[in-house]
């Protein structure tokens, strides 16, 4: 009688373990991408500040802004709209670059936020939120400064 009870408990425990394990596995497998716009902002700064920080110390800036797992820091960048274009995925790309700066911040929007990018005007000052993908540096082979890149962007009103 006691043995049967123990067996019952063991079976229940095993089943629960399988369910939890399987659940975690399935969750990991189907884990959704981080929703950048709904996640809290890590740093709010101007495009010129970000450019200056990177040009001052590239390595240290990467340590500060990039994450090992690719879910890097979420920024709110304020700057002057210097250009609006579109990438091969049909996403709008807004370049924030203040007059007189060697580089700026390239902000890739998403299909669902594209209309907010299209509504911007060149010369306008705006704040854009997105996740940083890479920083600013001078590439001697490209013979130019590379802009910082943020993606999953939207305008902060």
């Amino acid at each position, binding site marked *: 009688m006691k043995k049967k009870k123990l067996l019952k408990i063991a079976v229940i425990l095993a089943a629960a373990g399988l369910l939890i394990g399987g659940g975690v596995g399935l969750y*990991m*497998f*189907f*884990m*959704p*991408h*981080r929703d950048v716009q709904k996640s809290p902002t890590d740093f709010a700064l101007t495009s010129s500040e970000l450019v200056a920080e990177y040009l001052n110390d590239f390595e240290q800036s*990467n*340590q500060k802004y*990039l*994450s*090992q*797992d*690719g*879910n*890097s820091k979420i920024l709110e960048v304020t700057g002057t709209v210097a250009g609006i*274009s*579109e*990438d*091969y*995925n049909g*996403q709008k*790309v807004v370049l924030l670059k203040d007059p007189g700066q060697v580089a700026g911040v*390239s902000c*890739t929007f998403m299909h669902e936020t594209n209309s907010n990018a299209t509504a911007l005007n060149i010369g306008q000052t705006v704040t854009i939120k997105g996740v*940083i*993908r*890479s*920083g600013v540096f001078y*590439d001697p*082979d*490209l*013979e*130019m400064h*590379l*802009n910082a*890149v943020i*993606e999953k962007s939207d305008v902060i009103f």
Partner: protein
Amino acid sequence: MKTTKILLTALLTIAISMTAFSQTGDRLVSSKAHIKFFSTTPAEDIEANNYTSTSTINTSNGNVVFSVPMQGFEFPKALMQRHFNQANFLDTKQFPNARFVGKIANLDQVDFSTNGTYNAQVEGEMTIKGVTKPIRENGTITISGNSVEINSKFNITLADYGIEFVKGKPASNIAKTVEVTFIGEYQKQ
């Protein structure tokens, strides 16, 4: 005599400034590019897309350069993307940009001033995860008015760049050689 001298100096100045201008005009810049990784194994197909690269072509000496922000690769599954960025795979925090520096080897067969599609052989050095390897690949260059488009498809052996999996899921699900598709659009300035 003096007027001739002045005239010559003036002509020379004009000639020099014109070459200087034409040289800056020879460099085409693109920030519109698409790079796709495709890995296929019996276990699964994995595809990742990047739309954030910057590239230049110099039409007079054939130099081709591109810089790829590695964290800009997007995978259909969040977990794959996380693995891709981690230290044992691409280590994108340590090596945020991959790059290619090379030349169009058959530049004499590409006429940037005439519309058309040209076959191009590009050779140079690819740097991924801090490891530089020589590569030589084929592609096409399409010229249409002010727009120049480069297309190329080639294979990369991951182990060449120190990316190796000997056991577990990555070893069975990620191909040893991945196919890379590159398309970039450049505007004549």
